[in-house]
């Protein structure tokens, strides 16, 4: 199996300690800047940052599957939609506004779904895996879109404001989204990033990389190849569904379009934009994508053209993504 730059990388952990320190410092500066954002950023930028935090969570999970296990899914928007619809069902149908419960439920639902879907999907790799995930994703999308009596069809379902840690907050929707909800999202991002980091440095994380680089050899050495892939699939789905809850809350609506295949394409886009080769790359990709997308939307009617051209340029000229470029500039091995 030829795995080249796009699903390659992760060797960075063996880079020199000096650059490790540099990465650590950069991460620290980045986190401080995010945490202090409400003191200097505009309300509008803050809503974008909340969206960024949600996508960063999704991409951290997505990259466990793409970057570390070497499986390209074109169906993960399905799990984002699953998270958003769980939030909708809990807040507007069942009247349970506790965000913690919603997150747990979304994680459980998506884990169960991903387990069942994964059982079929992980038997294949490469293009067949991509197409099978696309097929499942579109099946779920058409369920959301067509079964009005369950899902509200193309109208979607409303998501009302949830309680964070059981507390209601004063002020309107914007104050909620840029205040408590923003910090809540950041905290979730921090916790989930830490968990993902620990996971990738655990034996399971090593198994994933072994399976990515050489499945036969991994199997020979006693790694359960399919079980490892299934784990990666389920974990990435849980991350995406948690992101879906957050995205749904900030939009206020669970919309079937969240599950359309082009959204899965955007997930891949963001991950590749940041670079699959490093742990933080996808987070960077989410940041660049969210702001770039918004800026292009505001500046030109033809933002899709520009986005598409950027994607083409990245694939052709910088397959290691923005993170690869940054590392190149910092003198790390590119």
């Amino acid at each position, binding site marked *: 199996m030829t*795995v080249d730059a796009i699903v390659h990388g992760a060797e960075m952990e063996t880079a020199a300690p000096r650059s490790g320190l540099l990465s650590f410092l950069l991460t620290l500066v980045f986190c401080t800047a995010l945490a202090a954002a409400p003191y200097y950023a505009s309300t509008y930028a803050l809503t974008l940052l909340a969206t960024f935090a949600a996508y960063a969570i999704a991409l951290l999970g997505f990259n466990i599957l793409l970057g570390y296990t070497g499986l*390209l899914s074109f169906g993960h928007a399905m799990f984002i939609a699953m998270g958003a619809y769980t939030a909708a069902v809990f807040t507007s149908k069942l009247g349970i506004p506790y965000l913690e419960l919603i997150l747990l439920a979304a994680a459980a639902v998506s884990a169960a779904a991903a387990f069942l879907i994964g059982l079929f999907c992980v038997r294949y790799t490469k293009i067949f895996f991509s*197409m099978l995930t696309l*097929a*499942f994703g579109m099946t779920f*999308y058409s369920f959301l879109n*067509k079964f009005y009596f369950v899902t509200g069809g193309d109208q979607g379902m409303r998501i009302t404001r949830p309680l964070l840690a059981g507390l209601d907050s004063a002020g309107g929707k914007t104050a909620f989204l840029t205040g408590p909800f923003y910090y809540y999202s950041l905290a979730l991002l921090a916790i989930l990033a830490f968990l993902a980091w620990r996971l990738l440095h655990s034996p399971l994380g090593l198994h994933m990389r072994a399976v990515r680089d050489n499945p036969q050899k991994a199997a020979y050495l006693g790694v359960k190849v399919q079980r490892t892939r299934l784990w990666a699939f389920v974990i990435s789905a849980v991350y995406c569904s948690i992101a879906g809850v957050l995205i749904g809350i900030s939009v206020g609506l669970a919309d079937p379009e969240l599950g359309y295949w082009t959204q899965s394409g955007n997930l891949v886009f963001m991950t590749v934009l940041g670079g699959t080769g490093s742990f933080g790359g996808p987070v960077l990709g989410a940041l660049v994508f969210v702001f770039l997308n918004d800026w292009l939307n505001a500046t030109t009617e033809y933002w899709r053209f520009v986005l598409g051209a*950027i994607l083409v340029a990245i*694939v052709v000229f910088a*397959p290691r993504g923005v993170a690869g470029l940054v590392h190149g500039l910092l003198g790390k091995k590119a």
Partner: protein
Amino acid sequence: MTAWLDIVLGGLFHAAVLFLVAAGLQLVFGVQKILNLACGSFYALGAYFAISAVAAMTALGLPIAYFFPVLLASGLLIGLVGLPVERLLRTVYRRDESHQLLLTFGLLLMFQDILRFFWGTAPRTMEGAYLAYGTVTAGGAQIPVYNLLVIAASIVLAGMLGLFLQRSALGKVIRATAENRDMAEGLGANVSRIYAAVFTAGCMLGTVGGALAVPSSAASLDMPAELIVEAFAIVVIGGLGSMRGALLGAVIVGLVRAFAIANYPEAEVLSIYLIVIAVLIIRPAGLLGKAQA
């Protein structure tokens, strides 16, 4: 009885159009090993361009009855857009397939705005063409002659393509290139020219498909993404890279979709994808694909 005939012929009409697109997809995948997400964009491009071409034709004062050859010609003409696109794809032939998939996804996004730039956001229809050849009555059902023409055209194109690939000298070289690019090159085949020709031909199949589909429906910006879903379903059901598979897949998808729309419209896409999943689980290489995972 009437309803059944209606449904079957409607399904076959749709299948005929889908077959062209899927055949283009298969041709490109078979030879170049690239799964082209932008095939839906080519389809939409063909549809929009055909509307403009037929509008230009009527503006010149030609009778509407000439629209069928104009459709075919405009589809073939705009298919030439494949040449510059292939230039771009050339940069990633030797790379991982996820790169290729992403590159075509980028092209899909770009084409979306190219279509919008030239034809606007509102759906466009071709006025007065669909029923220009009248209808025939068979078994109590009114069938537009145009539908039969498209089904016939698709069968003829399928036959020509099959004969060309199986019998002609160039077809043999193309198949050899598909089997083993380096060996074909070593034996003197001009692979880069073959790739350019094959991709453009695949592109033309897509644009002609779009041109032939548009008189019966409307061209809209949702076309590319929706068509890809169906074209992929066909390719997976039939087997990646297999032309006969594309034919079988197109007929299955066309008929299933027609039955679903007539009897249980909620399940239109769902039914197609349940078949896809079933096929992938039972025969991952597709019904007529070579057994290799």
